[in-house]
C-alpha cells in the first residue's frame, strides 16, 4: 500500500477536509494506488477485478454513517480512469465525501477521470460532497473529467454538493440522473475558473416518476481568460417538478455560455429555469467601500459570499 506524503496530505485536506484518517468507512487513492481502506459492518468496499475502481455496497438500513473516497495525484504524467459503483440499499442515511486533488509540478499532464454510478434504494437519503482542487506550478495541465450517474428508486433523496474553486485547468463534468416516484435530487454547484482554464458542466436529469423533483443551482465565476459552459437539461416525464438556476459572474475577459433546457413530456410536469450572467454590480462594490473596504477587498467579499 502506498504511503501518504506531505503533498498528498495537503491535497486530502483540501478535497475532503481530512486532517487525519476519517471515522467510518474510507478508501484513499494516491497516484493510482490504494493508500488506505477501511470497511465497516454496513459499508463494504471491494476492488474491481475487471477494471480500475471499487464497488461499494451499503447495507439496507445503514444510518448516520459516512464514507470518504478521496483521490489525489501528486506525480506529473498520471492519467487514469476510475470506475466506482455505489450500491446503496433501502432506508439508508449516509454521507459520501469524494473529491480529487491534483498537484502537478511537472511538465506532463495529470488527469483523473472518475466515473461514479449510484444505485440508490427506496427511501434512502444520501448527501454527496465532491470537491476538486489543483495546485503546483508545472507546465503540465491538471485535468478532471468526472461522470456521475445517479439512479434513484422510489422515495429516495440525494443532495449533491460539487465544488471546484481553484487550480483545475480543464474539466468536463457530466451528471446524469434518473428519478423514480417521489425521488428528490438537489444539486448545488460552485465553480470558479482562472487564467485560461476551461470548465464544462453538463446535466441531464430525467424525472420519470410521479412526484419526483430536481433542484439544480449552479453559481459560477469566470475570471481572467477562462471559459465556462453550463448546460443544464431537465426532462419531465411525469407529474413532477424541476428547477434549474445558473447564476454567474464574469470578470476580466472571462466567458460563460449558459445553455439551459427543459423538456416536458407530460402536461403535469412543472419545469422552471433561471439564468443570469453579469459582472459584479457596481453598487455592491460601492456599498462595501463606504464601509471601509478597498475595491479589491470588496470584490473578494462579494465573490466569497457568492460561492459560499
Amino acid at each position, binding site marked *: 500500500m502506498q504511503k501518504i506524503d506531505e503533498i498528498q496530505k495537503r491535497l486530502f485536506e483540501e478535497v475532503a477536509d481530512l486532517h487525519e484518517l476519517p471515522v467510518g468507512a474510507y478508501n484513499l487513492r494516491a497516484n493510482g494506488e490504494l493508500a488506505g481502506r477501511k470497511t465497516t459492518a454496513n459499508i463494504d468496499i471491494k476492488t474491481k477485478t475487471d477494471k480500475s475502481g471499487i464497488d461499494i455496497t451499503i447495507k439496507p438500513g445503514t444510518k448516520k454513517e459516512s464514507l470518504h473516497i478521496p483521490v489525489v495525484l501528486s506525480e506529473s504524467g498520471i492519467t487514469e480512469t476510475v470506475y466506482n459503483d455505489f450500491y446503496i440499499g433501502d432506508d439508508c442515511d449516509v454521507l459520501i465525501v469524494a473529491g480529487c486533488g491534483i498537484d502537478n509540478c511537472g511538465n506532463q499532464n495529470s488527469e483523473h477521470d472518475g466515473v461514479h454510478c449510484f444505485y440508490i434504494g427506496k427511501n434512502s437519503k444520501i448527501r454527496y460532497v465532491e470537491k476538486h482542487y489543483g495546485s503546483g506550478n508545472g507546465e503540465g495541465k491538471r485535468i478532471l473529467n468526472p461522470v456521475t450517474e445517479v439512479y434513484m428508486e422510489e422515495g429516495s433523496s440525494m443532495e449533491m454538493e460539487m465544488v471546484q474553486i481553484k487550480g483545475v485547468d480543464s474539466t468536463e463534468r457530466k451528471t446524469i440522473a434518473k428519478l423514480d416516484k417521489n425521488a428528490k435530487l438537489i444539486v448545488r454547484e460552485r465553480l470558479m475558473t482562472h487564467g485560461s482554464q476551461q470548465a464544462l458542466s453538463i446535466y441531464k436529469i430525467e424525472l420519470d416518476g410521479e412526484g419526483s423533483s430536481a433542484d439544480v443551482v449552479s*453559481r459560477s465565476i469566470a475570471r481572467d481568460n477562462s471559459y465556462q459552459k453550463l448546460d443544464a437539461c431537465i426532462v419531465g416525464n411525469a407529474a413532477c417538478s424541476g428547477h434549474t438556476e445558473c*447564476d454567474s459572474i464574469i470578470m476580466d475577459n472571462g466567458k460563460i455560455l449558459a445553455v439551459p433546457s427543459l423538456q416536458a413530456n407530460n402536461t403535469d410536469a412543472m419545469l422552471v429555469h433561471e439564468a443570469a450572467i453579469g459582472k459584479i*454590480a457596481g*453598487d*455592491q462594490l*460601492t*456599498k*462595501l*467601500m*463606504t*464601509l*471601509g*473596504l*478597498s*475595491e479589491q477587498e470588496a470584490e473578494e*467579499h*462579494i465573490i*466569497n*459570499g*457568492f*460561492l*459560499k
Partner: protein
Amino acid sequence: MLELKNISFNAGDKADIIKNVSLNIDENKFTVITGPNGGGKSTLARIIAGIIKPTDGKIYFCGNDITDMAITERARLGIGFAFQQPVRFKGLSVMDLLKIAAGKELNMDEACKYLSEVGLCAKDYINREINASLSGGELKRIEIATVIARDVKLAIFDEPEAGIDIWSFKNLINIFEKMRRERSDRTIIVISHQERILNIADDIIVIADGQVKKKGIRETIMPDIIGTPSAVGPCHKMV
C-alpha cells in the same frame, strides 16, 4: 467639521444637478436636509461620501481637503452613509455585512445588539442572505444597522424612514439620539421630509433645484416649511 465650497455636479451634457453649493456643517450637530424630490439631496450626500466626484468645488472634512479622496479613504476617516436604496448581495448574510461594517469579528451578542436597535429580531435575521427575499423595509433597517456598527464621526442617512412605516419613528429617533450620546464629536446628517425628524433637528437645510434655498437653526426654518412637502406630517404616505 464638514465644509462644501462652491460644489457643482453635472452628470453629462444637461444642466447642473448641483449648482454652486456652499455649506458648513458644524460638529456635533444634528442636521436635517429636506426639499422636494429630485432637488439634489441624494446627489449631495453621494458627493460627500465620495461615490460621485463634483465637477467643481472643494470638500473639507475635519480641516482636511478630501475632494480627491476615494470612497474607501473617506470611510476610513469616519464618514458613514446609509443609502436611500440599499444594495442587495447574493450570498452575503446580515452577519457578514455587519462584520464588514464593524471592521472586526463580531460575536452573536454584539451583532444582535445592532439588529435589535433597528427593531429586528436578531435570531430571525442574522443568517439571512441580503437578497431578494428581504423586504424593502427590512433592507432599510439593516442598512441603518451597518452605519451603527461603524464608529463614525459623520453619519449620513438618506431618507432612513422610507418604507419602514410599521416601525415607529420613535425608534429611529432613539437611534439618532443614542448615536449622539455615544460620541460627543459625532455629527449626523439626515435627509428626510418627515416633520417628526425635522422636529429634533438642530439645523435644517432646504435644497431644491440643486441649490441651498434655506439654511438655519430649526426654530427659524421650521415655521417657513411646515405644511409644505418639505415637512410632511406622519399621516402622509411615506415615499
